């Protein structure tokens, strides 16, 4: 079994502004790249690849480079992190090679010349095991495989992007005014999410304070992104991001089925809502029935104390 993993090189921080946020994003990307490299090693004779020479990800030059190498060296399985960029790349790569493709795998086992992949379907409402014939391209949910402690940095082989394959022209980057500058949702181990119960964008300062303490990404319900209180990229749920962090904190979110679809696979769920009947409590490990405007400052204070004593 030859198993490759692709090291994600998102946007070079310099191309975005190069602030702390971009460095955080880079670190998060590095962690997922290590996770899938470790998985590749566990599954077979592994190789970690990165495509260099692009300031900014674009599908065709990256896919062109990887596909050419794959045709020459015939790996059995290519793992890509299921980040937004990774999923874009993986799908086009699978199509280019004509291989099987499964997205957002949370488990991979090789048996009898095929890969059995665990993934969710129906907007996260069903868990499925699917058999993919090999060779295959699989995108892997960040955080699905815990990094073995002391995992060595893989040797990464660099291949140049196929610049001639580009058919699009990059114009500019338009930053979102309210973008959080925190680590991307897809890769975060802790997510603090706010819903309509927060009453307005001005109240996000409280949410951000807690998120910063916890090193968390910010999430939101669709009621919040639709109202323009928070940028769309923070939306969690069926039509937003699917997240599977170790800790998901839902503040003033009712728990509509479409929201639950995006977060019920989180390891631990904390919900704060003043309505004891709110559906979010049906999936919560810890629930607080009460006014979030009273609870949140007190909780942030307690977390601070706990961190200080740790």
């Amino acid at each position, binding site marked *: 079994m030859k198993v490759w993993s692709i090291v994600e090189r998102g946007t070079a921080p310099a191309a*975005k502004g190069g602030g702390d*946020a*971009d460095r955080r*994003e880079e670190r998060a990307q590095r962690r997922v790249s290590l996770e899938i490299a470790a998985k590749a090693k566990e599954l077979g004779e592994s190789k970690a690849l990165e495509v260099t020479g692009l300031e*900014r990800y674009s*599908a*065709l030059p990256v896919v062109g480079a990887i596909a050419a190498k794959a045709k020459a060296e015939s790996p059995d399985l290519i793992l890509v992190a299921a980040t*937004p960029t990774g*999923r*874009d790349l993986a*799908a*086009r790569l*699978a*199509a280019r090679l004509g291989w*099987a*493709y499964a*997205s957002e795998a949370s488990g991979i086992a090789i048996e009898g010349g095929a890969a*059995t992949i665990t993934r969710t*379907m*129906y*907007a996260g*409402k*069903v*868990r*499925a*095991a*699917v*058999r993919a*014939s090999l060779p295959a391209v699989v995108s892997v949910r960040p955080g699905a495989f815990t990094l073995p402690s002391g995992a060595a940095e893989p040797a990464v082989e660099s291949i140049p992007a196929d610049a001639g394959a580009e*058919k*699009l*022209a*990059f*114009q500019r*980057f*338009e930053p979102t005014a309210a*973008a959080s500058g925190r680590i991307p949702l897809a890769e975060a181990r802790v997510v603090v999410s706010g819903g309509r119960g927060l009453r307005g964008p001005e109240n996000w300062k409280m949410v951000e304070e807690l998120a910063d303490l*916890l090193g968390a990404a910010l999430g939101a319900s669709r009621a919040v992104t639709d109202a323009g209180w928070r940028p*769309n*990229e923070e939306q969690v749920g*069926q039509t937003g991001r699917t997240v599977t962090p170790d800790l998901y904190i839902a503040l003033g979110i009712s728990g509509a*089925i479409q929201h639950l679809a995006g977060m019920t696979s989180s*390891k*631990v769920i904390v919900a704060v809502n003043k309505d004891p009947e709110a559906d979010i*409590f*049906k999936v*919560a*490990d*810890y*629930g*607080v*029935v*009460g006014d979030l405007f*009273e*609870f949140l400052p*007190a*909780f942030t*204070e*307690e977390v601070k*104390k706990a961190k200080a004593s740790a």
Partner: protein
Amino acid sequence: MKLLVCVKQTPDSTVRVKVAGDGRSIDASQITWAISPYDEYAVELALERKDADPSTTVAVVTVGPTRSRDALRQALAMGCDEAILVTGAAAESLDGLAVARALAKVVEEAKPALVLCGRQASDDDQGLVGQALAETLGWPHVSTITKFRPADAGPAGSVDGIDVWREVEGGHEVWRTSGPVVLTVQKSEKEPRYPSLPGIMKAKKKEIPEKDASSLGVDAGGAKLEIVKMEPPPARGGGKIVKDGDMKQTAAELVRLLREEAKIL
């Protein structure tokens, strides 16, 4: 400009999906079907272009069982101009790459300036068909877009390409394409419109031509992905719920639980 939107009919987002007795498919008996949410955004984006420039025409296509006709009717009622149904036994068991091949045949016939897909279908959750369609056509694609419009018109009012807004962490990248392109849609700026009453009446009268998938030279064999098992996600709930407490105490207790019990802080 002619636009083509690829839509899939999937369970309505409010439906609780249940696994069927065979343990490898869903129980379709209780399901209401709808246009997959991202595809609905794609329809909305296309119709917004038509609002801005009435010379634009919008066609929708789906590959699927005959019930998918309802999804096409819904799209027509929203304001799309024409609909194409690719159906037949083969259409029901196609995998993503085969669907893309069938769609490519339709694109080659319809010759749209660009094709819109959803970011992913809300049944298989794959996010493959848009990219695979672009690959089959030899076109570029841009995924997770929220907006597109003709690039600034040249001196003679000519359109010099299309600008596309791709949602990424922290903002949008704007890409320009000069030729045909496949776009996969993350969201529209406005909510998808509801069908209007006259729209519904008009849609009822429209003919929806049907093509047989096998007549497009696409066969169902050789699917590379097979569902082995389906099950509901692990049950949750039975969590500790604190009511009516003093919020300071509750907060302290929660921090303790997260540290000592959940071992997470």
